[in-house]
C-alpha cells in the first residue's frame, strides 16, 4: 500500500501497539427467535503496527469502526477474533485483573467534553481516579501538577465539570489520562466537538505533552486536516477495514485508494475556496476517480 521505504531507525524502534487481523462483530437485536441474530461487522480484519513514540492517526467516516478499534486496543471490549499486542503483551484475552499494567500504560481521551467527565465528581477526584484505582497515593500534589500541566489553575480541582467550558473540560480529560504517567495516549476525536479557536488550544496542548512526556499518540479523527497536522503516520479506515496507511503528507498529497481520494477531495479548505473552488469541485475529483 504505502510506498514509503522504512529507514533503519524506524525498524529499530520497538513496537508500542500491534494489531493483527482484528475482527469484531456486534449482534443486532434479534428480530426473530428462530433465526440467528444479524450481526454488524464493525471490524473486518484490521492489522496495524504503531511504533513507540509515534504519532499515529486514524481517519474514517462515522461508523467505520474507529472507536471500536480503540476500545479493543484499550481492552474495554472483547475482540471476536484477532490479536492486540500492547508493549509485547497480548492483551486480547487477558482477564480484567491481569490488565493492570495496560491500565497504567495506556490511557484515553474521549470526544464528548460533556459526557466524558462524571458530573457528580469534583475535578480533583476525577483526575485522581486512575491513581486511586491503581493504588497510587493520590496526593494533592500530583493533581495540582497535572492541572498545571494542562493549563488550568490549581483551584479548578475544587469545582465540578459543569463549571467549565468545553475546551477546559477536554483539558481535564487529558489531565486524567496523564495521571498514571502512561506511555501511550489514545485520543478518540478529542477536538471534534470544539470550536476552531479552542481546537487550536487543545491540539497545541496535546502536541506539547506528547513531546514533553515522550508519549506514543494514537489520534482518531474524521477530519483529515487535523490528523495531518498532528500525526506522522495515518491509517484510513472504511467500513471496518484499513484501506490505506502511510505518512500523512503522502496520503494527503497523493491518496492511493479511491476511497481516500474521495475523502481528500471532499474536504473544503480555505485556500481552495479562495482560489475559486465550488461545491461541485468537492465532488468532482472523487467521482472521476
Amino acid at each position: 500500500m504505502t510506498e514509503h521505504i522504512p529507514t533503519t531507525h524506524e525498524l529499530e524502534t520497538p513496537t508500542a501497539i500491534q494489531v493483527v487481523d482484528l475482527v469484531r462483530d456486534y449482534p443486532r437485536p434479534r428480530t426473530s427467535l428462530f433465526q440467528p441474530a444479524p450481526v454488524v461487522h464493525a471490524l473486518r480484519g484490521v492489522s496495524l503496527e504503531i511504533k513507540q513514540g509515534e504519532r499515529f492517526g486514524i481517519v474514517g467516516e462515522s461508523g467505520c469502526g474507529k472507536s471500536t478499534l480503540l476500545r479493543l486496543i484499550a481492552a474495554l471490549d472483547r475482540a471476536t477474533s484477532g490479536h492486540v499486542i500492547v508493549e509485547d503483551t497480548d492483551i486480547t484475552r487477558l482477564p480484567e485483573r491481569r490488565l493492570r499494567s495496560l491500565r497504567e500504560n495506556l490511557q484515553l481521551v474521549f470526544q464528548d467534553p460533556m459526557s466524558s467527565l462524571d458530573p457528580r465528581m469534583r475535578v480533583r477526584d476525577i483526575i485522581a481516579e486512575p491513581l486511586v484505582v491503581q493504588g497510587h497515593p493520590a496526593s494533592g500534589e500530583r493533581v495540582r501538577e497535572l492541572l498545571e500541566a494542562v493549563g488550568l489553575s490549581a483551584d479548578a480541582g475544587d469545582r465540578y465539570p459543569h463549571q467549565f467550558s468545553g475546551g477546559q473540560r477536554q483539558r481535564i480529560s487529558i489531565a486524567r489520562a496523564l495521571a498514571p504517567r502512561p506511555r501511550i495516549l489514545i485520543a478518540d476525536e478529542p477536538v471534534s466537538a470544539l470550536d476552531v479557536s479552542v481546537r487550536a488550544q487543545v491540539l497545541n496542548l496535546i502536541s506539547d505533552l506528547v513531546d514533553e512526556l515522550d508519549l506514543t499518540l494514537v489520534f482518531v479523527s474524521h477530519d483529515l486536516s487535523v490528523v495531518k497536522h498532528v500525526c506522522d503516520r495515518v491509517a484510513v479506515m472504511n467500513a471496518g477495514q484499513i484501506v490505506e496507511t502511510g505518512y500523512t503528507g503522502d496520503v494527503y498529497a497523493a491518496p492511493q485508494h479511491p476511497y481516500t481520494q474521495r475523502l481528500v477531495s471532499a474536504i473544503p479548505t480555505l485556500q481552495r475556496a479562495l482560489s475559486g473552488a465550488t461545491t461541485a469541485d468537492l465532488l468532482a475529483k472523487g467521482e472521476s476517480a
Partner: protein
Amino acid sequence: MILRLIERTGVFLVSLAVSSILVFAFMAVLPGDPARVALGVNASDEAVAELRRQFGLDRPLPTQYFDWLGGLLHGDLGTSYVSKVAIGPQVFDRLQVTLWLVVAGMIIALAVAAPAGTVMAARHRKISGLALSAFSQVGVAVPAFLAGILLIVVFAVRLGWLPANGWTPPAQDPAMFVKQLILPALSLGLVQGAVLTRYVRSAVLDVLREDYLRTARAKGLRPFQALWRHGLRNAAVPVVTVLGLQLATLLIGAVVVERVFVIPGLGSLLLDGVSNRDLLLVQDVVMVLVLAVLLVNFLVDLLYVALDPRLRTA
C-alpha cells in the same frame, strides 16, 4: 412485524405460565384450611378430611397444579370449595361487570386527560395552563373512594338524580345500567384522568421541544396544527404505556369503588373469596386478573408498533 408478533406472543405465554405457578404457589402457602373454613370450626377432623378428599386437596401439589392448569386451558375453572358452584361462569360474569366499569372509567379518564393535558402543555406558561395544572394536581390527590363518596352524597342523596349504588346488567335494563354506571365510572375516571393528564402534559411538553415540531412550524403550520399533525401521535407513545399500566391497576383498583357503589365485580368476588378462604376461587380470580394485565401489556406492545414505525424491524 410478524416476527415481533410471534416474539411478543412467546413472551406473553411464558409470562402467563410463570404467573400461574406463582399464583398457585402463593395460594398453597396461604394459611387457613379451606375445608375447615367451609365446614365451620367445630367440624370433626374426619369430616374435614373427607371434604379435602372430595376437593382433591389431599393430592400432591404438582398434581393439583397440573389439574388446575389443565382445567384452565379448557376454560374450566373448577368448583368452589365453599359455594360448590362452578367458578367459571361466576368469574366471567364478574369480569364483565368490572370491565364495563373500568372501560367506562378509562374513557372518561381519556376524555378528560387528552384535551386537558394538551392544553396544559401548550399553554404551560399561561394562566389557563397553570390553573388546569393545579386542578389536576388536586384531582390526583383525592382517593377514588373519597371521590365516590362525595359524588354519592351530592348526586344521589342530596340531588337524587342518580342511584347511590347497585348494578343492573345492560341487557336487563339499559337505561338503569347507564344511570348506575355514571357515578362509579366518574369517580374512577376523574381520578385516573387527573393522573393521566399529568402524563399527557409531560409527553406533549416533550414533543413540543422536539426538533421536528420546529420543522413543521418552519413549513408554515401554526403551532396548534403542528402539534395536532405531528405531535400527538408521538406523544401517544409514552401515554399508551401509562394507559396500559393504569388499566392494570384499575382492574383491581376498582375494588374500592365496587365496595362504595355495591357493584358485584371481580374485586368484590376476590375479597369475598379471600375472607371465605375460597382458595380455588381466589386462585382463579387472581389468575384472570394477571391474564388481563398481561393481555393489556401485550396489546400495548402491539399498539406501540402501530404508533411508532421505528419499532417495526424490517
